[in-house]
């Protein structure tokens, strides 16, 4: 490995593309890979959007469409959850933002191993294809076990997709983890070993801190999902009993005996809780940068923001069982995990205070990215506060598996990171394409999305009905009052509207690519290095002959006594007077 002796990457040969295929499909350029990740994630996200319409239709207007059978409903719930968490949020925030921003913000030519990076995307693409195999005719549909895939029900015949659906799901997850590992190793190694001159860790933009820490979490948490996917596959295919106790279903005795369903839950949530922060930490980082740039003010408490990210990352490994209070654990476990869960609220609250204090008396520009960033903070606070209720054992027990939980996690780790993704796309689209997104469409998109998601999820807190029910009012046992029905219907209709608004956004992405206003190099007057590339959009290799040299942090906005209200990172400090 010759890289160690070669200073500052200037002499490392790049794999220049020679044809359309190597330029846009098998590309080793991190920027192309980022866009590939982004497009794939958005495409699969649209599938998840349609699935959410299917289940909302059933909840709001039960019996309206004959074809929404219980099987279809549960399959839609499961696939919606899994796609959103893994194949959209994780893939977009790390695969797309991570790939695009890490080398550019650090002043690197590319990721340290571009070839591995390329493979990473294609393996991810394969995992998406495998996931969708369940929808092929003859496969009897994807699994309907819920995104948590709890055994024993996930692999018993009463659950839809018990034959092939669960297998394609587990295989797809294992393949996704391979893809993530290849990408993740690249991000971490690039952050640690391939920064440019002057770019110390404490000068890195917070986006990089968030993406880097989330990648560490992913590399340590995904193994749990990987192993449990292998074990469940063995339970299903070979008839081992890792997770399966002695059980009979539909009158038939199974061969299983002696397994531990609780073990799966522990493994799943040992992955699942860090996963929440794998999604949240990049969002934290990106939103910090958005707020600082568009508020024309340095981020409040940069060091504390960094340490909060690190602390949240560390703590996220010892809170997992707060998802399992009703699973039959020892009560003392609940005590421990409730304590750690509430402790993790402290660094999170620090971050919220710092965002607020950054906005305080700032010279705020209400651009579309800024609107999304502020909306993130508001949504995250509401979703986070309900987390305090759910973190306490005694309060969580009655709230378990109700729409209170649905509202909580959709606001805190569904809508909030999605808002950041939107904000990030509006913010970096000018760098990626060289053109601005249409502002008017952007604002319409923002207000429909922001108000709409509030209208969807806020009332759910008060709905107080169990979740994952196919139908609530069955004959004599009707459990919903008419007002609850109206609430459900209004939520469903709002979901249609918000969903359609997303097509407006996609229209904007496509049209602005050709017809958007020319952006120039630095339309937002930002400081971080990605805005300082010699060309916009940046060419392969990013920086031309010499890499930039960093002289300051990324947050020198509105420095007193300076001509302009921003000083990019590669501007030298003045000689001391």
């Amino acid at each position, binding site marked *: 490995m010759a890289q160690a002796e070669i200073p500052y990457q200037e002499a490392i040969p790049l794999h220049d593309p020679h044809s359309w295929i190597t330029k846009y499909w098998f590309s080793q350029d991190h920027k192309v890979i980022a866009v590939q990740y982004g497009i794939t994630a958005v495409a699969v996200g649209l599938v998840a959007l349609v699935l959410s319409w299917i289940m909302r239709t059933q909840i709001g207007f039960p019996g309206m469409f004959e074809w929404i059978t219980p099987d279809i409903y549960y399959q839609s719930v499961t696939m919606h959850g899994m796609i959103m968490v893994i194949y959209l949020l994780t893939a977009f925030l790390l695969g797309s933002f991570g790939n695009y921003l890490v080398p550019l913000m650090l002043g690197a030519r590319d990721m340290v191993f571009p070839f591995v990076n390329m493979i990473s995307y294609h393996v991810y693409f394969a995992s998406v294809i495998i996931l969708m195999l369940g929808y092929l005719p003859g496969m009897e549909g994807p699994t309907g076990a819920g995104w948590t895939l709890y055994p024993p029900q996930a692999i018993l015949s009463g659950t839809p997709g018990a034959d092939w659906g669960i297998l394609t799901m587990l295989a797809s997850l294992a393949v996704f983890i391979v893809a993530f*590992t290849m990408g*993740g*190793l690249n991000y971490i190694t690039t952050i640690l*070993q391939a920064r440019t001159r002057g770019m110390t860790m404490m000068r890195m933009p917070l986006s990089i801190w968030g993406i880097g820490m989330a990648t560490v979490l992913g590399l340590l948490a995904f193994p749990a999902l990987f192993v449990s996917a*292998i074990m469940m596959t063995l339970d299903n295919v070979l008839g081992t*009993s890792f997770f399966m106790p002695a059980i009979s279903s539909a009158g038939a005795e199974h061969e299983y005996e002696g*397994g531990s369903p609780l073990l799966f839950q522990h493994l799943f949530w040992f992955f699942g809780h860090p996963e929440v922060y794998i999604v949240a930490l990049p969002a934290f980082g990106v939103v910090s940068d958005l707020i600082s740039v568009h508020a024309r003010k340095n981020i409040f408490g940069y060091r504390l923001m960094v340490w909060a990210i690190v602390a949240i990352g560390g703590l996220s490994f010892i809170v997992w069982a707060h998802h399992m209070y009703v699973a039959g654990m020892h009560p003392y476990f609940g005590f421990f995990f409730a304590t750690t869960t509430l402790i993790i609220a402290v660094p999170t609250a620090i971050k919220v205070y710092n965002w607020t204090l950054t906005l305080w008396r700032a010279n705020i520009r209400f651009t579309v990215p800024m609107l999304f960033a502020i909306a993130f903070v508001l949504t995250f606070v509401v979703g986070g506060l309900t987390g305090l209720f759910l973190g306490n054992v005694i309060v969580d027990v009655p709230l378990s598996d109700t729409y209170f939980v649905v509202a909580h996690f959709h606001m805190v780790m569904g809508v909030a990171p999605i808002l950041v993704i939107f904000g990030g796309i509006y913010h970096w689209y000018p760098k990626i394409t060289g053109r601005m997104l249409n502002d008017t469409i952007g604002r319409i998109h923002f207000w429909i999305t922001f108000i709409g998601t509030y209208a969807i999820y806020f009332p759910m807190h008060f709905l107080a009905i169990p979740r994952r029910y196919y139908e609530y009012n069955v004959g004599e046992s009707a459990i919903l009052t008419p007002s609850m029905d109206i609430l459900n219907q209004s939520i469903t209709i709002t979901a249609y509207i918000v969903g359609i608004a997303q097509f407006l956004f996609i229209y904007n992405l496509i049209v602005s690519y050709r017809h958007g206003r020319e952006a120039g190099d630095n339309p937002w007057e930002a400081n971080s290095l990605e805005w300082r590339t010699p060309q916009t959009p940046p060419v392969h290799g990013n920086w031309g002959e010499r890499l930039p040299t960093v002289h300051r942090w990324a947050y020198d906005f509105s420095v007193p006594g300076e001509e302009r209200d921003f000083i990019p990172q590669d501007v030298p400090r003045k000689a001391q007077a």
Partner: protein
Amino acid sequence: MAEAAAQSTGLASIAKDWSSDVTTFKGVPWGKAMMWIFLLSDTFIFGIFLTSYMTVRATTAEAWPNPSEVFSLTLFGTTVPLLLIAIMTFDLITSSGTMALAVNYGYRRDKKKAVIFMLATAFFGFVFVGMQAFEWYKLISEGVRPWGNPWGAAQFGSCFFMITGFHGLHVSAGVVYLSIISYRVWRGKYDDTNFEIVEITGLYWHFVDLVWVFIFAFFYLW
């Protein structure tokens, strides 16, 4: 900057490295850093395999078969417990020794000896996989299956095949990896480097050995 870093020692120098620009780990090639991080992730995979094994062993209602009896070999009329496993362990630890020699000769730019010892390591790895195949064959012919066995808890066979299988895959991958890298070293692909690639390969190999020690301790000795 570099002089200041050289002067400080201990914790202060660690802090200095982490707060410096360009590289956090000085003089560490990208590939080596990446291998370390990968191994950290892989540690979690094996850690979770072993934790899961211990959990199912603790949860299952039936008695756990006695590994000393199950993994015994009868040679010349005497039954020796864990004989094959002892030989396998010895073989793998020997391979770690040859690997260390290969790394040493690599840094001395003695290409020929480095390649010979890498190939020796691959050979020991291959022998290990062969003995593992024999072990699997023997147990399968005695009636051990992933879903059950003649002596007790069904999870014994499940865990055995899963964990040793996954480790065996790692060893096999290591043999292939070693063969490819030694071929490339021989062909002169790394002649303008310090042959760090040998050490990177060695990191992986030592890791696989170390994992075996844990599997040995937790699965065979317990």
